C-alpha cells in the first residue's frame, strides 16, 4: 500500500542526505544564543551532509510519515509533498496539509478531509508556519536562563520532583485547552505519580462561563458543539463566531451553508447580532442591535421571559419589568419562536448567569440536539476560571510546591495587577514547557522548550470522536522536546512521542472505531487522512433544569456613570490573545473591520469621539475610574456602528515578544519606527481583565478617557471607509460608488421580478474601438468572488502572502500606504447606527482583458497571456509606476525599497516557485500562476485532461466560506462559468470596459423574515 512504498522512499532518501526531508537542522556551532541562530540556505545544505549522522543519533520522525495526495516514488526536487497534520495555533484544531519542498514546510493548506474545517484554514493557521522558522525560538533547555543539556536538566528536575513526591508537596500543571487524548493520558499518568497533583487549564480569552453554565443546567461541564449549518435564525450576544469565537473556520463554513442562496433549496438564515462594538460577525449580521455590555443581560432576560410567555411557561429567573425593553425583544422572541428547533442562541459573555439565560433560551426553543449538541460535544475550549482562581489562592497561601506551565502565559495574558510575578516568585519549583519564550518563562527555574507543532507528533480531539493527527514535517530545528516526551521522561519512560502516541491510540482509541480491523491499517489511514472518526464516549445528561439563582441578578456589569465609558476588551482576528503577536504577517494583517495594522487602539463611536473632541490618531489616556489601577495610552480610532458609551481595545498587544520588531522595515532618513516608545508594538490591555466572582471579566469596566494632546498616526491600509463619497463633494446621483452591489432575497427568488442576467457585456453589449485580435480559444482563467459569502476573515490575505513570498514592510510603510498585500479586502460602510451595513470586498488583480496597465508600460513589462492572465515581468520592469497609476482598481504594488527578506532562517519559508522581487519593480496578484503551471504540467505528465477545481488559487483554497471560485471560464462545465450565469453576477467598474476576469456575486440583503410573515 501507498504508505509502505513511501516509507521505503523516505528511508532511501535519508541515506542520500540532501534529499532527506528533515535536514534543516541547525548547523554545528549555531546553537548558542537562540537569537543568534540562523539557518541560511547554505547552512541548510551544509547540514544536509550530516543527514546520516543526525539520523543515527536521533529519532528520525519522518520515518513513519505518509504524504497525502499522491504518494511519490521519490522525493523529486521541485515537487511538493503534502503531509496531513493539525493546526494548533488555537485550540480549534483545524486539519491542515503541510506542503513541503525539499524537506521543509513552505505552506499550510486546509485539509479537505477534515470534518470540521473542511479544507479551510484561518489567517492564524496560515501564518503559523512562520513560527517554525522563528529565529527567536528557544532551541535548548535552560536552567536559570542558561542553556544546558536535556540529560542535566532531566536529572535535576527528576531529583526535585522526587523530593516533592516524598515531601507530599502539591504539584500543579497549568495549561491552556489541551484536547489531545494521548497527551492527556500521559499527563494523567504523570500527575498520578504525586500525592497532590492537578492540572489546571484556562483560556486567555475565557469561554469558561459556557461550560460552567452547562454544569449548572445540564449537570456536565461541557462545551456544546454549535451547528450553525442547521440554524435558520441565529441570535448572537456578542459572540464573534465568524472571527474569534471558539472555532471560527468551522462556524464560518456552517454559517455559509445555512445562508447559501445558490443551492437547489436556497437557505435563508436570519442573523441577529447584539453587540457593543462592530465585530466581524456583526458586519455580516442581517440585523445589529447595538447595546452596551451592561444592557445585554437585561435584554437576554427580557427575551427569555417573553419566550417563556410564548411557550406558556413561567420564567424561573426574576425579571425587572421594563416596557421599553419588552417592546424591543418582542418581535425577536416571535421570530425565534417561529424558528424553534431551527434557531440558535449564542453568547460570548464570560458571565455564567448570562450563559444560563442562553441555555434557557435554547432549551425553550428546543435547539439542544439540533443546532447545538452536547454529545458529541466540542472540546475546543476547556478552560476553567474557577480552577484558575483556586490556583491563585493556593499560590497565595504558598501551598504549591511545583508549578509546570505549558501553552499559556499568565504573566502577559492575565496580569491581574501583577499578582502572577509576585506569586510565581515564591513557587519553589517552576518549570516552563512552552515552545516559545513567553513572559512567564522568564520566572521559571527550568525551561524545557517544546517543539513547534510542525516538528512534532501528536493528536487532537476538537470534537468528541473526531481525532486529528499531528505529524512532523521537518527535523526539529533546535534541541527541543515535546511536552509528552518531557513528562514521560520524568516518569523514567524515555520513549519518543511517536511511540507514546501510537501506544495510546492502539490501547485507547483503536477499540472505539469500526472501519478497520488491524491497528496498522487504522493508523496508516488516519495518518494519511490526518483525521479519524471514532465512537465518542457516551455521556448521559441530566434533564435540563433552571433555578432562579442560576440567572444571577440579570446583569453583572455596572452601567458607566455620566462622562465614563465602559471598556470592552476584545480578541482581534489574527492576534487573538497575543500568543502569535510575534508573527510579522499577523501584525501587518489589516484588522478586517478597522483596517489598522501594527498595534492596538481605542475604538470610539463617532459621537463619542466628537463628545471628547478627539479624532483618529489622537492619543488618549484610558484610566480606571477609581484613581489607581491600570492606565493605557492609545491612539483613537473612530469606529462607526459602535455604542456611544463604549471604548473597545484589542487584547494581545504590547508583549515583550514584539520588541523584535524594532527596526523592521526599510531604514532611511525619514523612516518611522514600527514599535512604540516602550519598544513594543501596541499596548497590553490585559491589566484591565478582572477575576470577578471566580470568573474572568473582559468588558464593562467603567473607564475615564482623557486626551493627551499628542498624536500617533495609525497605520491603516484603508483611509476612506464609506462606499459613498464625502457628502460635501457629492453631486446629485454621484453619492454612492457602485463598486458593491446588493440584491434583496426577494428580488433573487421572486419569479415576478425581472432578474438581470449574468455575464453582461462579456460579449457584445459594449462596442470595442479595436478589432479583436485576441480571441481566447483555449483555456481562459477567471475568478468569481461571492460578496455575500465573504466575511472578511482575511485568511486569504495571509494565504496569498505565504504563497507569493510577499514581504512585510513595517508600520511606517503601511502608514505611507505602501503595504504589499497582493490581495486586499476593501471594507465599505453605508447607513447609520444600528442600520450600518458593511461589505467586505476582496480585491485581487482583476486580470482585465483590456488591461489599462499593459498599454501604458513603455518596456512591455506587463503583458497578457494567451490564457487571459495579466502577467508582470519583474526583471523587465523599470519601475515607471505608470501601470499602477492607470489601474482603476489600484491593485498593483510597488517595491519602494529593497524589502529584503534578511532573516535567513525565515527565508526557508519562501516558496521556491515564486520570484522574490527586488527593489524598484512593480508586482501584483498573478492568479497563482505557479499553481496553474504546476497543475497543467502534472496533468500533462499524467496524460489526463485538467479538471475543473484541480487548480485552486491560494486564497480560494483557504477560504472558510468558499467565497472564491477560480477556473477556466471557457469550459462551460466549470463552476466559474456557471456562476457567470448567476443573477448576482457583476463586475466592478464594468462601465470602463476593461473587461476584468474577476467577477463578483452581489451581496444579499435578507429582510426580517416576519415582515413577510413566513414561519
Amino acid at each position, binding site marked *: 500500500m501507498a504508505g509502505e512504498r513511501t516509507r521505503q522512499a523516505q528511508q532511501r532518501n535519508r541515506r542520500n542526505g540532501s534529499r532527506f526531508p528533515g535536514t534543516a537542522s541547525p548547523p554545528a556551532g549555531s546553537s548558542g544564543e537562540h537569537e543568534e541562530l540562523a539557518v541560511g540556505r547554505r547552512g541548510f545544505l551544509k547540514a544536509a551532509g550530516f543527514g546520516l549522522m543526525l539520523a543515527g543519533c536521533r529519532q528520525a520522525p519522518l520515518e513513519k510519515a505518509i504524504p497525502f495526495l499522491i504518494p511519490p516514488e521519490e522525493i523529486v526536487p521541485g515537487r511538493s509533498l503534502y503531509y496531513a497534520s493539525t493546526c494548533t495555533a488555537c485550540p480549534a484544531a483545524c486539519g491542515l496539509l503541510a506542503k513541503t519542498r525539499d524537506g521543509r514546510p513552505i505552506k499550510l493548506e486546509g485539509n479537505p478531509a477534515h470534518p470540521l474545517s473542511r479544507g479551510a484554514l484561518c489567517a492564524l493557521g496560515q501564518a503559523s508556519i512562520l513560527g517554525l522558522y522563528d529565529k527567536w525560538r528557544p532551541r535548548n533547555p535552560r536552567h536559570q536562563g542558561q542553556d544546558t543539556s536535556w540529560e542535566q536538566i532531566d536529572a535535576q528536575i527528576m531529583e526535585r520532583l522526587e523530593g516533592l513526591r516524598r515531601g507530599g508537596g502539591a504539584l500543579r500543571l497549568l495549561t491552556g485547552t489541551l484536547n489531545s487524548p494521548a497527551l492527556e493520558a500521559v499527563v494523567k499518568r504523570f500527575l498520578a505519580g504525586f500525592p497532590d497533583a492537578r492540572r489546571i487549564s484556562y483560556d486567555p480569552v475565557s469561554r469558561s462561563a459556557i461550560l460552567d453554565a452547562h454544569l449548572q443546567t445540564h449537570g456536565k461541564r461541557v462545551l456544546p458543539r454549535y451547528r450553525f449549518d442547521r440554524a435558520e435564525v441565529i441570535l448572537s450576544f456578542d459572540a464573534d463566531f465568524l472571527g474569534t469565537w471558539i472555532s471560527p473556520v468551522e462556524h464560518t463554513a456552517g454559517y455559509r451553508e445555512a445562508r447559501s442562496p445558490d443551492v437547489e433549496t436556497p437557505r435563508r438564515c436570519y442573523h441577529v447580532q447584539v453587540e457593543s462594538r462592530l465585530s466581524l460577525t456583526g458586519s455580516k449580521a442581517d440585523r445589529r442591535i447595538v447595546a452596551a455590555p451592561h444592557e445585554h443581560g437585561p435584554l437576554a432576560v427580557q427575551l427569555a421571559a417573553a419566550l417563556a410567555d410564548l411557550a406558556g411557561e413561567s420564567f424561573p429567573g426574576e425579571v425587572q419589568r421594563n416596557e421599553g425593553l419588552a417592546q424591543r425583544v418582542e418581535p425577536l422572541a416571535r421570530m425565534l419562536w417561529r424558528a424553534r428547533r431551527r434557531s440558535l442562541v449564542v453568547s460570548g459573555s464570560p458571565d455564567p448567569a448570562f450563559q444560563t439565560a442562553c441555555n434557557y433560551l435554547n432549551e425553550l426553543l428546543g435547539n439542544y440536539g439540533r443546532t447545538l449538541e452536547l454529545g458529541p460535544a466540542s472540546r475546543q475550549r476547556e478552560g476553567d476560571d474557577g480552577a484558575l482562581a483556586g490556583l491563585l489562592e493556593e499560590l497565595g497561601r504558598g501551598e504549591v510546591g511545583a508549578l509546570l506551565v505549558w501553552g499559556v502565559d499568565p504573566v502577559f495574558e492575565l496580569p491581574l495587577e501583577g499578582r502572577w510575578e509576585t506569586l510565581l516568585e515564591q513557587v519553589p519549583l517552576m518549570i516552563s514547557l512552552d515552545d516559545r519564550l513567553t513572559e512567564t518563562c522568564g520566572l521559571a527555574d527550568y525551561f524545557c522548550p517544546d517543539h513547534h507543532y510542525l516538528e512534532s507528533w501528536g493528536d487532537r480531539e476538537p470534537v468528541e470522536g473526531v481525532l486529528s493527527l499531528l505529524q512532523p514535517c521537518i527535523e526539529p530545528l533546535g534541541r527541543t522536546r515535546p511536552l509528552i516526551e518531557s513528562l514521560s521522561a520524568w516518569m523514567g519512560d524515555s520513549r519518543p512521542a511517536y511511540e507514546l502516541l501510537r501506544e495510546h491510540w492502539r490501547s485507547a482509541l483503536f477499540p472505539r472505531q469500526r472501519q478497520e480491523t488491524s491497528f496498522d491499517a487504522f493508523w496508516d489511514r488516519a495518518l494519511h487522512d490526518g483525521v479519524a472518526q471514532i465512537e465518542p464516549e457516551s455521556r448521559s445528561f441530566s434533564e435540563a433544569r433552571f433555578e432562579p439563582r442560576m440567572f444571577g441578578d440579570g446583569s453583572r456589569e455596572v452601567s458607566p456613570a455620566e462622562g465614563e465609558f465602559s471598556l470592552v476588551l476584545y480578541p482581534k482576528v489574527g492576534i487573538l490573545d497575543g500568543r502569535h503577536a510575534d508573527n510579522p504577517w499577523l501584525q501587518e494583517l489589516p484588522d478586517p473591520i478597522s483596517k489598522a495594522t501594527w498595534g492596538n487602539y481605542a475604538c470610539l463611536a463617532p459621537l463619542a469621539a466628537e463628545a471628547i473632541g478627539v479624532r483618529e490618531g489622537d492619543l488618549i489616556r484610558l484610566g480606571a475610574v477609581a484613581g489607581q489601577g491600570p492606565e493605557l495610552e492609545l491612539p483613537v480610532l473612530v469606529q462607526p456602528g459602535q455604542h456611544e458609551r463604549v471604548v473597545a481595545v484589542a487584547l494581545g498587544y504590547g508583549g515583550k515578544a514584539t520588541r523584535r520588531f524594532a527596526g523592521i522595515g*526599510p531604514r*532611511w*532618513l*525619514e523612516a518611522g519606527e514600527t514599535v512604540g516608545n516602550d519598544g513594543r508594538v501596541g499596548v497590553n490591555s490585559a491589566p484591565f481583565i478582572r477575576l470577578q466572582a471566580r470568573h474572568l471579566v473582559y468588558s464593562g469596566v467603567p473607564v475615564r478617557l482623557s486626551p493627551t494632546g499628542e498624536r500617533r498616526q495609525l497605520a491603516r491600509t*484603508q*483611509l*476612506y*471607509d464609506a462606499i459613498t*463619497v*464625502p457628502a*460635501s*463633494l*457629492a*453631486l446629485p*446621483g*454621484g453619492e454612492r*460608488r457602485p*463598486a458593491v452591489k446588493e440584491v434583496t432575497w426577494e428580488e433573487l427568488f421572486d419569479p415576478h421580478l425581472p432578474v438581470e442576467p449574468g455575464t453582461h457585456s462579456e460579449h457584445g453589449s459594449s462596442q470595442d474601438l479595436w478589432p479583436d485580435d485576441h480571441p481566447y480559444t483555449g483555456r481562459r482563467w477567471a475568478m468569481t468572488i461571492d460578496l455575500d459569502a465573504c466575511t472578511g476573515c482575511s485568511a486569504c490575505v495571509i494565504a496569498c502572502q505565504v504563497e507569493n513570498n510577499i514581504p512585510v514592510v513595517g508600520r511606517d510603510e503601511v502608514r*505611507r*500606504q*505602501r*503595504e504589499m498585500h497582493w490581495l*486586499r479586502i*476593501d*471594507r*465599505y460602510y453605508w447607513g447609520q447606527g444600528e442600520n450600518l451595513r458593511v461589505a467586505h*470586498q476582496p*480585491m485581487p488583480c482583476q486580470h482585465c482583458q483590456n488591461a*489599462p496597465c499593459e*498599454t*501604458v*508600460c*513603455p*518596456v*512591455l513589462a506587463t503583458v497578457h497571456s494567451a490564457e487571459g492572465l495579466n502577467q508582470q515581468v519583474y526583471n*523587465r520592469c*523599470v*519601475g*515607471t*509606476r*505608470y501601470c*499602477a*497609476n*492607470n489601474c*482603476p*482598481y*489600484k491593485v*498593483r504594488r*510597488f*517595491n*519602494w*525599497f*529593497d524589502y529584503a527578506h534578511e532573516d535567513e532562517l525565515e527565508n526557508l519559508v519562501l516558496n521556491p516557485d515564486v520570484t522574490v522581487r527586488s*527593489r*524598484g*519593480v*512593480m508586482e501584483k496578484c498573478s492568479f497563482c500562476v505557479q499553481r496553474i503551471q504546476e497543475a497543467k504540467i502534472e496533468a500533462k505528465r499524467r496524460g489526463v485532461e485538467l479538471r475543473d477545481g484541480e487548480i485552486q488559487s491560494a486564497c480560494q483554497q483557504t477560504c472558510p466560506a468558499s467565497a472564491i471560485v477560480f477556473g477556466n471560464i471557457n469550459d462551460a462545465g466549470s463552476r466559474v462559468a456557471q456562476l457567470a450565469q448567476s443573477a448576482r453576477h457583476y463586475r*466592478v*467598474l464594468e462601465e470602463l470596459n*476593461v473587461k476584468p476576469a474577476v467577477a463578483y456575486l452581489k451581496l444579499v440583503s435578507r429582510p426580517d423574515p416576519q415582515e413577510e410573515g413566513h414561519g
Partner: protein
Amino acid sequence: MANPAVSLREPLIAGRKTSAQVSRDICAVLDRRPTALWWSAFLLALSTLLLGVAAVGYQISVGIGTWGLNRTVGWAFDITNFVFWVGIGHAGTLISAVLFLLRQPWRTSVNRSAEAMTIFAVICAGLFPVIHMGRPWLAFWMIPYPNWRGPLWINFRSPLVWDFFAILTYFTISLVFWYVGLVPDLATIRDRTAPGLRRRLLSFLSLGWDGSQRTWQRYETVYKLLAGLATPLVISVHTIVSWDFATSLIPGWHTTLLPPYFVAGAIFSGMSMVLTLMIVARKVMRLEDYITRQHIDKMCKVTLATGLMVGFAYVIEFFTALYSGNQYEQFVFVNRALGPFWWSYWIMVGCNVAIPQLFWLRRVRRTVWAVLVISIVINVGMWFERFVIIVTSLHRDFLPAAWSSYAPTWIEIATLAGSFGLFFTCFLLFCRFVPVIAISEVKGVLSVGRQFDEPLPPPAGARPLRAVPAAAGAVAQTEATQ
C-alpha cells in the same frame, strides 16, 4: 522692411545704434570679467544644483521610497516637475520659431536667450522621467535597440515611449536651431578677438563663416525650415506630454481637452519664465536698449493671451465633467476645488487666472518690477497646475477603499530645488560665454522704426583707383586662422 506699418512703430532698438555699436554692446558682456553679482548668483545656483545631485544620489542608492509616493499616488513631484520644465521650454521655441514665421521683428532681442532657456529647461525636464524610475540604471531599455532578449522591443503604444521620442527630438532640434542661429555671431566675436586660443576655438565653432550672401541666403532658408519644423514640433511635444494623462483612464486625466490646454499652458509658463529672466538680464547686463519696455509689453500680451486660454480650459474642464454625467469625472473636479488639496487648486487659479488679468493695464505691462513679480507668480501657479492635475486626480479615483493622500519628502523638495539649480547654473554660464542677443538678427532690424534717419554724407576722397599689384592685394587678405 520699408512698409509703413512697421515704420510707424517706435524703434525696436533704442539709442540709434549702428551695427558696430550693436556688436560692441552685446559682446561687451563677454569681454568684461564676471562681476561679483554674477559670481554670487552662480555659486548660489551651483550649490542648489549640488543639493539636488545629493538628493537624487541618495534616492537612487536607497530607493524611490524616499519620495512621498504610495500605492495610489504613483506620480507627484517627479512628473509635475517634468511637465513644468517641458512647459518652460516651449516659450523659447515659440519665440524663435513661431514669431519668426509670424515676422515679429521684436523677437530678435530675446530669441537667443529664450532658445537657450528652452535647451536648459528640456535638460531639466529630461532628467525627471529617468530618475523617477524604480530602476533608473535601466532607463536605456526605453530605446528600441536590438538585444538578446528575443529581441524584445518596446511598447510603441505607451505614451511614455512617445514622450521619450518627443523629448529627444525636441532637444536635438532646439539645440541645432540654436546653434545654427549662433554661427554668424560666433564669427562676429571671432573677428573682434585677438589671435589666441579663444579665437581658435571661436573660428572652430563658427565653421568658417564669412558672411557670404550666398550662404546667408541658404542660411535664411534653413532657418525658415527649422522654424517651420519646430512649430509643429513644439505643439506635438506638449500634446504628447498631455497624452501621458489623456490616454489613461483616470478621471481628471482622461479628457480630450488636455492637449490644447497643455500647449497653451506651456507657452504661458514659458513666456512668464522668459520675462523673469529677461527682466533680470537686461538690468544686470545693461541691455535696456535692446530689450526695451516694448519687448516686455509684447511678451506680457502673449502671456495674457495664453493665460486666458488656460483659464478657459479650467472652466471647460468643469463643464465637461458636469455635462458628462459621469460620477467619477464629476467627483474628481469637485474634489479638486473643495477636497483635501483645495489649497493647491486655488493657488493655481489665483496665480494663473486672477493675477495675470493685471496685464490688461498698460501701466502694469510697462512697470518692469510689476511684470517681474507677476511673471514669477505665474511660474508658481503653473507648477501647481501640474501638481493639481497629477495628484488630485490620482489620490481619489474609482474605488474609495484605495483612496489615499500625498505629502512630499525633503528628498523630493531638494530634487525640485536641484532642478532649478541646474537650470540657473546653465543659464548663468550661457550669459558669460554666448552673446545673449542674436547680434546679426538685431542688426537686421536696427532700421525698424528708424526710416527717417538722415542719410550718410557722401564719402570724401572717393578717387578713381589705381590698380594695385596682386601681391599687395594678397597682403590685404586676412587669414582667419593663423
